[in-house]
């Protein structure tokens, strides 16, 4: 296998986008699952303990490096492809088909990605930087000291504009995923007439549900809403 030739080809570059994209999607699921603690009663302790685990477990810290690499690769490659694709038509059309032949979000992945990147910078500055480099208050559970990341979230989401920025970030994510999930499957060659409807439905459900859960987090925290775990046990 000539891997440099493969990854320098147009299809190879797309495969890099697809594989890193799939990796980031897996990360979103884990992130969403861990953070879902904030919806329920005893959120402070449960969330802080979960965050402590994520911040100290060696395997997860190593994966975190991979995660940053994945983000950087996806972002850099994405911009490179966008620039290259923009240079293939020097003489522009006077009239274009617009939404008649394709979806606006499928044509706007770089724009949506840029919005997500801006959000990501704000988001890392809000939570990741203080978690890793200090600046959080401490809290004790069973005689052990934990970062009180939960309190930090409470304080940050007390600001209405922050909540709005986060919800907008989730919208960008949703549209990016709406194209991204099925696009990754297509690039990997997993789409065929048998699986296409299934893949499209999974992609749609995923890009709706995950951003929705994320968007609800700052809203819940801002308004001090809590789902009673007891009620939840009843529900399930």
């Amino acid at each position: 296998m000539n891997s440099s030739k493969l990854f320098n080809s147009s299809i190879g570059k797309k495969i890099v986008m697809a594989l890193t994209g799939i990796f980031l999607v897996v990360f979103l699921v884990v992130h969403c699952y861990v953070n879902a603690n904030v919806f329920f009663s005893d959120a402070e302790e449960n969330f802080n303990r979960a965050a402590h685990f994520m911040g100290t477990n060696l395997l997860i810290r190593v994966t975190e490096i991979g995660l940053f690499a994945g983000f950087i690769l996806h972002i850099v490659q994405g911009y490179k492809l966008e620039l290259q694709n923009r240079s293939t038509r020097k003489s522009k059309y006077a009239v274009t088909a617009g939404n008649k032949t394709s979806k606006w979000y499928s044509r706007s992945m770089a724009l949506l990605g840029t919005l997500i990147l801006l959000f990501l910078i704000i988001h890392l500055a809000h939570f990741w930087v203080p978690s890793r480099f200090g600046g959080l208050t401490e809290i004790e559970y069973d005689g052990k000291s934990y970062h009180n990341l939960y309190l930090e979230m409470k304080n940050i989401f007390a600001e209405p504009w922050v909540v709005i920025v986060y919800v907008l970030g989730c919208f960008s994510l949703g549209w990016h995923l709406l194209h991204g999930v099925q696009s990754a499957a297509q690039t990997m060659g997993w789409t065929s007439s048998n699986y296409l409807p299934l893949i499209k439905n999974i992609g749609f459900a995923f890009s709706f549900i995950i951003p929705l859960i994320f968007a609800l987090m700052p809203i819940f925290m801002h308004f001090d809403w809590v789902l009673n775990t007891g009620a939840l046990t009843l529900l399930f």
Partner: protein
Amino acid sequence: MQHYSMNLTLKVWRQKNKNTAGSFETYPVQGISSEMSFLEMIDVLNERLIKEGGDPIAFDHDCREGICGMCSMVIDGRPHGPWKGTTTCQLHMRAFKDGDVITIEPFRANSFPVVKDLMVDRSAFDRVIQAGGYVSVNTGNAVDGNAIPIQKDKADHSFAAAACIGCGACVAACKNASAMLFVSAKISHLALLPQGGPERKQRVVSMITQMDKEGFGSCTNTYACEAECPKEISVLNIARLNREYLGANLSGN
């Protein structure tokens, strides 16, 4: 549908040659029949331009029955015009109504340089085909094609892909000027048949290498190509092309 006649305003891209800049010229045309094809409508205008001593509009065409893929032009932002699964020569003027203003441009892509007016040079496609879009055939007596059993659904998918007429509308429609739908049709056509077997891996690698060399963009799966393709080639062929390409590379071509 009732036959009717219409007056139209055409905004047509005029460009002397590859090296000069082009611009739009406006031409009013009168008494166009709804039963004319789009190309016949341009013929009417060209006859008038010739009589007036002007330069007729250059455009490509050959079969005028939707099978050769020559009649490239972008009509109101749509390669081959507004009808689905139709070439420009098969587009009829009943798609328009009296008083319409129609903008006619050439297929635009760096890889398809304008020769003159609406004519573009699509020899990049020929070079992609030359790179691998063929099968080897032994000399000697011709073999009966039907002697080779082929699974029905494979034959059907291959046949559907073989319907590609190499018109280039997919490139013209794509925001990235990507040629993936065209190449995927050619790859699928041969990869699904036993006759395409011997060169299968080398073919996909060579054709993609040539496609990239020609400066076509990278596919971002917007599927505008499928929407505009006059032969309604499915983008599932692109998924097959991706599989073939990855497979050929991983298995050490």
